[in-house]
């Protein structure tokens, strides 16, 4: 049984047609997976990896929007993609799947036991199935509804459900992406062990090369609907031959990445920003691309003075300063409690408990913590979006104006019907620096900031919905720094982006930090990204800052339980 081929995909091409346009999502892809093997399908959004995952389960609806050619053979049975009526027999028995979001794929009206018993036949067998995915006290879990379980538990239940019918092929589509980072490693471990026990073939769809290396025997890298490189995991990861795979690999950041240099391969937009900064500082022009690829480029080269603003410094005009001693952001014993009413009774949720910290001039601090730890509330209070119950926030600093926030979902943070120019001008109008400037002056300011973040003048007239995710994030950053703030608060600015785009956004934030002398507070649960940006990492649990670790020695020095789990998650 061990080396029989379970899945053979030959010459699969899938096209979507809609509104007069035809998009080829997958073209001429061929794959095979043997029993007991795991194939990782890796690519960025729009690469067609999820379309393949859906095609081999037959869940692309046959409504005429999608068309497919080629053949799919599952456990010796040949099926025409999309249109074959036999898919309903194969799906759920020979092929099962684990989706990204377990909350949306589990039936909220059924207990776990009722869902699982349909496949296992008896409560005892269901208990055994849950124990196989390392759920303790399985008997109790069977009586619960999905909403009563944590995200990690739900995904384990999902894995148990997917393996219960004894499938020949399991499709795992980004199974840990929606989970808190600290439980991702556990769930991946559970998934790997249980598929080894089950002995089925696995198609593992992911955007994360690190996860793919951890999980898979073989890897196929996809770009624009084509497999650009495929082979044993160690070869693809260790000695990538295709330039795209090389770029993806270079974009990966770990806890060993050099913090003093830009990460990833030189990227045009970031290089343009760097040259722009050098011009602004009257430094000699240098071959940025060359220096970057030789590893000779450090952030030191871009360090510039900060704009100190009247209100904060006591002087009426804007001046450039080299150094400031006053802290840029001082948070003092901040408390925040949310009250809700449940069954007529008041329930207090003490989200922040006497939180105090400072961010110094030119310092970058990362705030990590699991969901519900209060880190987002702290950011919102520091950014002036919410007010603290008690305690003070002093964001006057001396350099820059107040605080600005870069939100997680850049697309949603830009008002869709306003043009980029209007959004930037609006920010300028509401600052001390921008008061009394003419429209033309503001436009010039907006333009130079857009250039700084690697966008050109054509973007000024565009509305946010016409821009890509990476461009939107750049516009959001441009709005935040068009008048340099004292502190830039970043709320997971990269978690919604593809790896290569995330990489260039991180580079951009680092560049702005050094050239404009802005302090940064970076909220994230990606420890590798935190370490790259920040000098210090604050770990938050239960509304308190429990640990402060210097970024350089993060992996070694972090001691709290949650922190260790985050470290494990990055290493996975």
């Amino acid at each position, binding site marked *: 049984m061990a080396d029989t081929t379970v899945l053979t995909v030959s010459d699969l091409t899938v096209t979507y047609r809609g509104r007069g346009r035809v998009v080829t999502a997958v073209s001429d892809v061929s794959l095979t997976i043997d029993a007991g093997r795991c194939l990782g399908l890796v690519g960025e959004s729009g690469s067609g990896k999820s379309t393949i995952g859906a095609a081999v389960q037959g869940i692309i609806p046959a409504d005429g929007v999608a068309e497919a050619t080629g053949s799919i053979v599952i456990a010796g049975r040949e099926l025409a993609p999309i249109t074959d009526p036999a898919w309903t027999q194969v799906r759920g028995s020979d092929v099962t799947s684990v989706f990204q979001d377990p909350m949306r794929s589990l039936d909220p009206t059924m207990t776990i036991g009722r869902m699982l018993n349909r496949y296992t036949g008896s409560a005892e067998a269901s208990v055994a199935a849950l124990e196989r995915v390392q759920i303790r006290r399985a008997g109790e879990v069977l009586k619960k509804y999905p909403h009563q379980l944590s995200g990690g538990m739900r995904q384990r239940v999902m894995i148990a459900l997917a393996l219960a019918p004894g499938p020949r092929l399991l499709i795992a589509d980004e199974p840990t992406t929606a989970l808190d980072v600290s439980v991702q490693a556990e769930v991946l471990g559970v998934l790997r062990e249980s598929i080894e026990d089950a002995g089925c073939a696995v198609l593992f769809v992911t955007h994360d090369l690190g996860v793919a290396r951890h999980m898979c025997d073989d890897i196929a890298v996809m770009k624009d609907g084509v497999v650009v490189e495929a082979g044993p995991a160690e070869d693809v990861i260790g000695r990538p031959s295709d330039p795209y795979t090389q770029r993806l690999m270079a974009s990966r950041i770990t806890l060993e990445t050099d913090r003093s240099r830009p990460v990833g391969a030189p990227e045009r937009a970031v290089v343009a920003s760097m040259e722009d900064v050098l011009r602004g500082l009257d430094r000699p022009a240098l071959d940025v691309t060359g220096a970057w690829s030789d590893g000779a480029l450090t952030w030191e080269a871009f360090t510039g003075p900060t704009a100190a603003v009247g209100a904060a410094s006591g002087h009426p005009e804007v001046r450039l300063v080299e150094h400031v001693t006053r802290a840029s952001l001082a948070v003092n014993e901040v408390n925040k409690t949310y009250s809700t009413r449940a069954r007529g009774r008041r329930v207090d949720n003490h989200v922040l408990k006497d939180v105090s910290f400072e961010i110094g001039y030119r310092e970058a601090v990362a705030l990590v913590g699991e969901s519900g730890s209060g880190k987002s509330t702290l950011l919102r209070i520091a950014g002036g979006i919410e007010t603290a119950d008690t305690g003070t926030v002093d964001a006057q600093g001396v350099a820059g104006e107040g*605080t600005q926030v870069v939100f997680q979902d850049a697309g949603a*943070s830009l008002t869709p019907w306003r043009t980029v120019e209007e959004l930037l001008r609006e920010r300028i109008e509401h600052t001390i620096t921008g008061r009394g400037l003419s429209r033309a002056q503001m436009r010039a300011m907006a333009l130079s900031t857009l250039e700084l973040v*690697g966008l050109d003048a054509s973007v000024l007239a565009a509305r946010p919905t016409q*821009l890509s995710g990476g461009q939107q994030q750049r516009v959001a950053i441009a709005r935040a720094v068009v008048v340099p703030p004292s502190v830039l608060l970043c709320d997971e600015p990269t978690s919604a982006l593809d790896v290569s785009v995330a990489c260039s956004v991180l580079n951009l934030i680092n560049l702005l930090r050094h050239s404009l002398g802005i302090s940064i507070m970076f909220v994230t649960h990606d420890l590798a990204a935190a370490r790259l940006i920040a000098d210090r990492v604050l770990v938050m649990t239960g509304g308190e800052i429990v640990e402060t670790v210097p970024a350089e020695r993060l992996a070694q020095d972090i001691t709290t339980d949650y922190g260790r789990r985050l470290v494990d998650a990055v290493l996975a």
Partner: protein
Amino acid sequence: MLFSRRGTLERVEAAQASRRDSAWSALGTGEKASLIAMAAIVLLALIGPTLMPYSPIIPSGPQLAPPLSSGHVLGTDVLGMDMATRLVAGMQRSLLAAVVVTAVSAALGTLIGVLAGFRGGWLDSALMRFTDLFLAFPAMIIAMAVAAAIGQSLGSAMIGIIVVWWPLYARLVRGEVRRVVALPHVQAARVSGVRGWRLLWRHVVPAVMPTVVVTASLDIGAVVMTLAALSFIGLGTPAPAPELGRMASDGMKYFLNAWWIAVLPSVTIGLLAFVFNYAGDALRVVLRRTGV
């Protein structure tokens, strides 16, 4: 994947053009037909009365001529007035009144809803309890009471309907405003320093307007019906002005020997309501495509 890399102006323009195309092509045949029918009705109501050979309020032929009589395609009524002329004139009256009623209700309701939703606190509670007061009573009864109290005329019927109609918009808009205010783009605008009216006007209201416009267009049909109902029970325009509800009501007396006097205005009312409802749905599809 049109904008996978750095967007240029050309690409942006191409996208705008394709969005406009797609809004129309996303509609089903029925929805397209309803929009065309709506345009036709509006056109007919606007210029129809001037094209008609007769006056809607002066007898112009034999009494009770049946439809398809010579010179009177849809027949004449008890007094010998041309039915076709009266129907077109009635349509104009009904539509105009319905548009005014809907627009005034929507504007009033939007204003109150925006105030309540944006300011919150005691003002919200006060305004919403005031709104609830109107919603607590059966709409038709209040409209009748108001219209009867002011006196029998088209104007008083319209006021009666506005009085019961605006609270629906106030509720709707308040909910929308509260939803939109919590969206990231409004918070981001706040962080940029935008406050007060400017925040409301630039970042909140545009997100609410499509909902209001769609609801209003769906409402026109219902207002036509309500106006007709009020004049049917004698609270609208006094005779002999051509008013569809009134015409139907007057025609009831002659129903058995001259069916067309009651049936034709009723069918016209039904047609107006149906077309505007359907077109409102189509409009929603279009606005969803192009808007927020």
